[in-house]
């Protein structure tokens, strides 16, 4: 009996155990079921989502920076190009003790105080996680030395980059401008133009000059490389590759050799020169002296150089062609003559008697002619040839300021020419309305007198005067001056020429323009104010000299250049065109503090014309203080 109970108990025990084991099995099945459900959820229902996540994990889109477009002159000479070089770069966020690291680097690589200063400046201008250049253009030796020691410098790396180079350096600085690091303002602008994506990876952008104006042409299209990366961000392999499209090549109307000759012709003088083909508005030379080294800006300029450039009395950063505003002086006279003829204020033959000064009726104030004692009997032709002030004082007063304003503005005075550069100034062409607005003052006849000879309120830029001279040379058919001639598409190699349509036709009276042009030719002939300009030239030159006063003269005081500080001497102007009968080139020269236009400015214009029309290379200009005998004999080169 007892045995049976025990047996029964045992059976019950087994039963109870198996029941619990069964529950355990059910529990296990439940757990496996939960897992199964989870797998179905992750791998079947949400597979697309996790697939995307995995792809995003592994695929990194890297921009490939396009090569910036080249800039060539009209004959294919390279004015701006790229070359590849190595830079040493530091990511500040990855470096704990920056000064020590830089000091250590300096033991391997030549790091000048200038480089350190520039780096500091870069640092303040950029985010900490960006890589910043401390040295550019490393030598092969420096690259090798650093590569061997790289393990010591986490956060420091050598990068291969394309550099912009301007072979003509300071000679084309004002024309080409320069590229510089993209800053916040540039970024905002790109964002506004929806261009930010195309600039991924691009560090530089055109800041001034043509580099800025034609940024969209030059930049190109950024390529894309889809790269598989590991969790550390290292590229493992390339998945897809969309090559970048290089920027387009700009072919300028500039003639680099002409530009070079013009630069040299200036010697040590400051000033500006513009040469334009009057038949189409192509700018052949665009010179603003002195220039500056644009490469200083490409790498990010350091404080010292920046200060030096900014505080120099020579104002090398000032683009005189585009932004310099000067009194036109007597160069305005041919235009005044045309105005007088237009309004019938004077007939060509109508002569005045010049006593050497002009007085307004009812006033005793004498407006002096540049020639003491006057020019005697002066008609319009002679007034231009001898640059008679008295004649133009009277003409201006008789025309009235508003007529002058209206007529001269047709030639583009007081307005921007619309050249393909940013930052042009518009000069100043005064009127009654302008004076009222500006000074809340009435216009007096006395104001008009000085406007008649290009002084007083009126101001022009060399570019304006050049465009006006070209229009005059082209008998009133005007073109917008432009620097770009053709664009060569980098992808298709197709060249698209810029359309050369006249901007306006002043419909000048043929007899009037003929007379004025003949008078301008006579200016360069014996008896004129710029005889030196055409001496021995096998073609005829039309021109007009001008002198822009820098300091005012008191009544009765005599101008004596030798007594004046050099920077207070008059600016010299010369406007010209040649050949006079069928002008192919208009040249305007401004020599700051150069004195009389015929003496300093005209010979510079002549050298430019000689080269352009005859292919003649001028003899080298000698620096001040060197006698011809000491000068090395340079062989003229010509092609």
């Amino acid at each position, binding site marked *: 009996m007892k045995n049976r109970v025990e047996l029964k108990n045992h059976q019950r025990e087994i039963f109870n155990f198996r029941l619990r084991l069964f529950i355990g099995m059910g529990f*296990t099945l439940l757990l496996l079921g939960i*897992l199964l459900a989870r797998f179905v959820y*992750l791998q079947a229902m949400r597979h697309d*989502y996790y697939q995307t996540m995995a792809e995003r*994990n*592994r695929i990194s889109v890297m921009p490939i920076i396009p090569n910036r477009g080249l800039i060539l002159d009209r004959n294919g000479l390279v004015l701006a190009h790229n070359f590849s070089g190595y830079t040493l770069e530091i990511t500040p966020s990855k470096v704990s003790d920056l000064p020590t690291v830089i000091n250590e680097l300096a033991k391997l690589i030549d790091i000048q105080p200038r480089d350190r200063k520039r780096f500091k400046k870069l640092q303040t201008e950029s985010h900490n996680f960006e890589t910043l250049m401390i040295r550019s253009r490393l030598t092969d030796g420096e690259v090798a030395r650093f590569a061997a020691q790289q393990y010591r410098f986490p956060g420091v790396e050598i990068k291969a980059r394309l550099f912009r180079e301007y072979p003509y350096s300071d000679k084309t600085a004002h024309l080409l401008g320069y590229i510089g690091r993209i800053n916040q303002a540039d970024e905002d602008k790109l964002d506004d133009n929806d261009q930010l994506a195309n600039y991924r990876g691009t560090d530089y952008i055109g800041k001034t000059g043509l580099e800025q104006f034609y940024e969209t042409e030059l930049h190109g299209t950024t390529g894309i490389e889809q790269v598989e990366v590991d*969790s550390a961000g290292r590229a493992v392999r390339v998945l897809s590759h969309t090559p970048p499209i290089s920027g387009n090549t700009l072919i300028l109307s500039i003639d680099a050799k002409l530009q070079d000759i013009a630069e040299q012709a200036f010697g040590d003088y400051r000033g500006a020169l513009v040469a334009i083909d009057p038949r189409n508005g192509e700018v052949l030379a665009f010179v603003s002296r002195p220039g500056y080294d644009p490469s200083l800006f490409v790498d990010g300029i350091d404080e010292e150089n920046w200060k030096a450039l900014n505080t120099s009395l020579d104002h090398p950063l000032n683009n005189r062609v585009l932004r310099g505003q000067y009194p036109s002086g007597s160069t305005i006279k041919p235009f005044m003559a045309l105005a007088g003829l237009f309004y019938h204020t004077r007939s060509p033959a109508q002569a005045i008697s010049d006593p050497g000064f002009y007085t307004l009726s009812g006033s005793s104030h004498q407006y002096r002619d540049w020639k003491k004692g006057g020019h005697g009997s002066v008609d319009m032709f002679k007034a231009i040839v001898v640059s008679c002030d008295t004649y133009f004082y009277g003409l201006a007063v008789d025309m009235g300021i508003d007529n002058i304003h209206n007529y001269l503005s047709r030639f583009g005075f007081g307005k921007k020419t619309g050249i393909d550069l940013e930052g042009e100034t518009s000069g100043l062409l005064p009127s009654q309305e302008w004076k009222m607005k500006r000074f809340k003052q009435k216009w007096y006849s006395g104001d008009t007198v000085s406007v008649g000879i290009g002084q007083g309120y009126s101001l022009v830029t060399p570019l304006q005067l050049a465009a006006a001279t070209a229009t005059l040379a082209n008998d009133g058919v005007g073109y917008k001056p432009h620097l770009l001639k053709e664009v060569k598409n980098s992808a298709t190699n197709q060249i698209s020429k810029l359309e050369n349509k006249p901007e306006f036709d002043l419909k000048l009276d043929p007899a009037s323009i003929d007379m004025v042009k003949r008078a301008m030719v006579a200016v360069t002939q014996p008896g004129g104010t710029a005889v030196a300009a055409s001496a021995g030239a096998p073609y005829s030159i039309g021109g007009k000299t001008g002198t822009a006063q820098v300091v005012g003269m008191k009544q009765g005081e005599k101008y004596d250049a030798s007594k004046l500080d050099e920077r207070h001497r008059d600016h010299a102007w010369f406007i010209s065109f040649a050949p006079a009968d069928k002008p192919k080139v208009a040249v305007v020269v401004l020599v700051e503090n150069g004195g009389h236009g015929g003496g300093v400015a005209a010979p510079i214009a002549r050298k430019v014309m000689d080269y352009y029309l005859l292919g003649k290379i001028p003899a080298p200009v000698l620096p001040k203080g060197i006698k011809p005998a000491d000068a090395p004999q340079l062989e003229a080169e010509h092609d």
Partner: protein
Amino acid sequence: MTRQQIWQKMTAHLDLPLLAGMALLMVASLLTLYSASDHSFERVMAQSANILVGLCCLWVVANLPLHYLMRTAVPIYVLGIVLLIGVALFGEISHGARRWLNIGVATIQPSELMKVGVPLMMAWYFEKYETSLSLKNYVVAALLLLLPVGLIARQPDLGTALLISASGFYVLFLAGLSWRVMGGLFVAAVASAPLMWSMLHDYQRHRIEMLFDPTQDALGKGYHTIQGMIAVGSGGILGKGYLNGTQTHLDFLPERTTDFIFAVYSEEFGLVGNLILLAIYFFVISRGFVITANASTYFTRLMAGSITLTFATYAFVNMGMVSGILPIVGVPLPLISYGGTSMLTLLLGFGMLMSIQTHKKLVKS
């Protein structure tokens, strides 16, 4: 003896179905490891060595009659406790936890020993008092469990503590702990949850928080979970193909030869592969249940049941944490993750199962 007889004698105590299921998992282990380690034969060979050593131990244990096994229970348990106290006093700290003990020749992790030691001790205890079980015995058994669990939780090694608790609880459960007590304990556990929370280490809390929202800290604490889920999810139905897992081979998966090896497998073999793996696990577990159901003594029933259920728990916890439904507690995928200790512990357990299965006939006769 003929060669055949020798072979028979050698294999007499091995359970073929169980061995077959395990072998499939081991093959999966080596294959996946080769992929996870970026084609490292070294790793595969090292794991093969782990398996080989483990199988030898399994063979030895499987051939041990049960009373030998029972006799080891107390010494193993006592040794384990001594070592755990040693760890608490002289243990080496790594990653903010004191788990390792340097015993001169090697550093060991005594908590691993207790994975076998605790259920063995408890089963031994119940066997000893089989005929006169009362609530007092359950309380003592529970204390036998809580002592090492407490020491391990203090290290702190929450994952191991919980898993040993589970294996001990399975013994209590199978030993017939009354439903009422279990219900009471459950209520008490829920009620004490806030207290438990306050006792957790910061990193453990983070892991639990991240479970509910891993995106909170995608590059920090949630990274493991997110990358694991991405690997599993992106595997899809058929997987990316063997050796083609991007999460694996581009280094996005952490711990991919050990705790996260399931993500590697899952990414490359997909839902279909997962189903096959679950099926194999189910087969092995089922065989364990069959052995348990047929076990002849109280001790062997409790032992076999605990081993089987613990094995199932390991598999569930690991796959659950990799696929983002459980916090990351540092549990390897049984028989698949790389690692000698866990392989050895598991194979010792399976050796006991085989011993239980193959020695009962002898007992009967």
